[in-house]
């Protein structure tokens, strides 16, 4: 039993000593190189094609930063609704084979429709702008949550299922003690996918009819021919996406610390 214990204690300590943060040197160097190249190109190209960093930062200071909060609120709100709907339907489809057989083709149909078409439908069907945006985001993101969660639920190993069943759980217990926790990694992954999807889709949705938000800011910039402002908004979007992904990764590390 001695060797066992040595291995065990070593790994427990190693886990506790795991470095909480590592400076992402390669990423910073890569991004800096790109920024420098951009600046150099801007010296040789007119500013309405590639504006220099000076112009971009100047535009950045003049932007309506409350638009960022508005857009973020739309994204988060729609993702929460999508998650609840997606997971709820996934549970229903998991629990009942007929429900799954009927619903799966419909979900595939939803997923096959291009985003642009959803935006046009939203404009044709709904008057209220906030609802249009929420509709587009939910219809795009909810199926991703649904399909990923359902596949993960169905992929729970038979060995673990048999082990649990040998103890005679109720259906609810089988689901809450085994199926749902086993689905958590897939759910976190679909949050990551959907976050970047939603941030990209929301700006397009905001192009149609909204008078707030980053998408609207982009339209205004384009109408004013302010190229540096377009770039400034783009920069903000990219930074938001990076930050959101970083936050989610940290959450994932915390929740999935049981993984190797």
């Amino acid at each position, binding site marked *: 039993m001695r060797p066992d214990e040595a291995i065990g204690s070593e790994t427990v300590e190693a886990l506790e000593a795991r470095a909480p943060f590592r400076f992402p040197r390669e990423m910073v160097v890569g991004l800096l190189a790109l920024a420098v190249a951009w600046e150099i190109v801007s010296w040789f190209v007119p500013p309405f094609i590639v504006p220099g960093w000076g112009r971009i930062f100047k535009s950045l200071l003049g932007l309506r930063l409350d638009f960022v909060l508005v857009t973020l609120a739309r994204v988060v709100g729609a993702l929460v609704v999508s998650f609840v709907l997606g997971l709820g339907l996934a549970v229903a489809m998991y629990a009942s084979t007929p429900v799954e057989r009927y619903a799966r083709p419909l979900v595939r149909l939803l997923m096959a429709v291009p985003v642009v078409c959803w935006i046009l439908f939203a404009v044709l069907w709904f008057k209220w702008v906030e609802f249009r945006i929420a509709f587009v985001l939910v219809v795009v993101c909810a199926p991703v949550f649904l399909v990923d969660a359902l596949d993960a639920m169905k992929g729970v190993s038979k060995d673990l299922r048999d082990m*649990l069943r040998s103890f005679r759980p109720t259906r609810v217990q089988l689901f809450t*003690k085994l199926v749902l926790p086993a689905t958590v990694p897939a759910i976190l992954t679909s949050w990551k996918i959907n976050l970047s999807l939603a941030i990209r889709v929301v700006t397009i949705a905001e192009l149609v009819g909204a008078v707030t938000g980053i998408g609207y800011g982009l339209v205004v910039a384009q109408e004013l021919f302010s190229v540096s402002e377009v770039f400034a908004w783009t920069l903000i979007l990219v930074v938001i996406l990076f930050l959101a992904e970083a936050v989610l990764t940290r959450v994932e590390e915390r929740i999935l610390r049981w993984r190797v």
Partner: protein
Amino acid sequence: MKGAGAIDVAGLRKVFRHTGGGEAVVAIERLDFTIRQGDMVAIVGQTGCGKSTFLNILIGLERPTEGRVAIGGRTPYGDFDHFRGTLAAVFQQDRLLPWRTALDNVRLPLELLGRAPDEQARRARAWLDRLGLARFERAYPHELSGGMRQRVALARAFAIEPALLLADEAFGHLDEVTSAALRTTFIDLARRQGHTAILVTHQLEEAIDMGGRILVFGRPGALLADIDLHAWPRASVAGLRGDIQRMLQSNAPLKEPPA
């Protein structure tokens, strides 16, 4: 702890048919025997003799194709929920839930039985402690060695103090020293708890270590011999070993019964 009652196996046959057609596979040809309450039984046989299938039927995970398996008069497949809290199994792989710590894995069956949270924790700790894992209750399975994980699985099975304890090749894949140690622990604890214990194995030594009854399975799923070690003089165990080896190799009962 209530007893599970005797296990009656009568005319048991199990055939697997693949859903996409194809040939049916006979996993168990025919089995008839009885296991008394409190018996320590080892089922020994080569790969493909249906011993794991038999165990799955006993657990209630598979339905017999023909014949009947009953524990205390009730069938584990048909009366599935009746056996809540009465039987527990240890499998070849530890089958721990990777997102639960060692302690929470041992608590799992107690949670399923609806025991009070403080009782769950107390019992789970006590069993981890008995299996020498008190220091590792907060470790996740991936932080433990194979032997330690299997000990957690043992603790999980013992935690509900089942009347019927089943082990399916539970120690065979570990190194010899760890395997022997775990086997001793298993047999010792099972004996002390007064459980009916069934150990399925392909290793003859394991079967003899159990020290109770040995059922020798031939392929596919037929009883070659039913040996009671208690009725066996110690000196002739070596001869018995040879006899069982011969039966397993020839897949037939001995012409003359073991002397």
